[in-house]
């Protein structure tokens, strides 16, 4: 399958992965090969087949509405690259 460089850049942007022009070209070729493999699926007629999302045909188990978590803020914040006053910090967001 032919992917364009624009396709590659678009999905890299959607996936938030920086990609150089050289990488984009190489990626396009590799993805092209992978999609050639994937498109073997086209040979199968799947009309009326129920999609299978899970390995089991079961339904969801629900939990009781109870508070079971305790405050672990300091342990979790200690994992973060940058925090201040109990908040995770990221570069300024413009809404």
């Amino acid at each position, binding site marked *: 399958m032919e992917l364009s460089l624009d396709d*590659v850049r678009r999905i890299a942007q959607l*996936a938030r992965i*920086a990609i150089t022009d050289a990488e984009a070209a190489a990626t396009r070729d*590799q993805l092209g090969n992978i*999609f050639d493999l994937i*498109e073997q699926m086209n040979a199968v007629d799947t009309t009326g087949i129920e*999609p*299978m999302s899970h390995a089991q045909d079961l339904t969801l188990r629900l939990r009781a509405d109870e508070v079971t978590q305790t405050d672990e803020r300091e342990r979790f914040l200690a994992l973060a690259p940058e925090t201040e006053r109990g908040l995770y910090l990221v570069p300024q967001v413009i809404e």
Partner: protein
Amino acid sequence: MSPRAELHELDLTELSALLAARQVSSEELAQALLARIATQNGDLNAFITLDPDATLAQARAADARIGRGEGGVLTGIPVAHKDIFCASGWRTTCGSRMLEEFTAPYDATVVEHFNDAGAVFLGKTNMDEFAMGSSNESSWFGPVRNPWDRNAVPGGSSGGSAAAVAARLCPAATGTDTGGSIRQPAALTGICGLKPTYGLVSRYGMIAFASSLDQAGPLARSAADLAVLLDTMVGFDPRDSTSLERPVEHYGRALDRPLEGMRLGLPREYFAEGLDADVARAVDEALVTLRGLGCETVEVSLPNTRLSIPVYYVLAPAEASSNLARYDGARYGYRAQEPRDLADLYSRTRAEGFGAEVRRRILVGTYVLSHGYYDAYYLKAQQIRRLIARDFDAAFSTCDLILGPTSPSVAFDLGERSADPVQMYLSDIYTIAVNLAGLPGMSIPAGFGAKGRPVGLQVIGNYFDEARMLNLAHRFQQATDWHRRAPASGA
């Protein structure tokens, strides 16, 4: 078993007996294995994180427990964990630069189960980055080498665990299997590995690759050892919505049952073009042995086998692209230096923190889910997934277990397939369908092929039929000694 045998030469069942008889302490055992790791691991690169103090402290606690007469079969047994399981206080990297400095603040349910059983945490094993790979070459911490041949890959993604067990660095290890990641490295390193029925082992604390396919399981030297490990790993977990509530099983209960009359299905498609002759020969010999033990073989068909690879390379990357979105440099893990703005933080953190194979799969997954392509790829793949599951249903109406090769070839050379992703993907042709259907699958040693590299025999069971699979494997191992063969130690 000779008491003079070196501790590392003994398997789990043997060590368990020694510990219970107080002929060896858990601390001595842990020390012996840590010493062996110190001399052997530099070359193999099977372990990526060790913490001897923590290990020995746990060993001493196990000795005290045995002393109180409260030990179980795993108490004091050193176990290595694939670095995909979060373990409180342990660095947990998933083989990625993204988590190179990440110390997990909690225990995975699997780790909890081993701790509760009194097992000793020996260390974290190397793996393909985020479990994406079949050769262990995609790890940020460098490739693992195959103990049978240092030029060969050990398989992946649980390559570190498999190599550690094969090289007698530990009697048992945990792994995870999304498309063959326990069975294929077990085959390529000449050991035993079992992927249980999806939902039997909790996924809580196991870093997700493809959630609907991921399942943890044990790697060890014998079927009997696997049964013991499985007893500990399996169990309902309310923290995992896909965990199954089932009565507690004892997986070793049927190990010794005679195999007379057991019907083994041989999928026509698994013995066709693409299977290397040396592997075919070893598998055929194993089948001769099994017939000698009273099994009948029947041909079955799994017609959609070849589609399992395209289906898998849609579904697994799709789920992964979403599962790996949390690695954004904000709350934990790698963060790119001096980001210009938020967009730069995200895109450089993810470009620098993920390796090439992970980035490639994220892009494939993003594409197949993106607007306008969902039906053609994702939905279609889910439909064919159902057809693949139905193939197994049909096959199991005429046989008890399905047998075949685990991998179409013996271990390939390092670097041989890493340049061509598609070639690499094809090495999972016999294992992937089992994950898509959610069935249990196992690989056990069945001899050697080209260059003296091991061959694995795959056993596929119907849902929840692990005890029968282990029965077959155990009887086979009583009739053969492939599982007792050890590679020569390194320098």
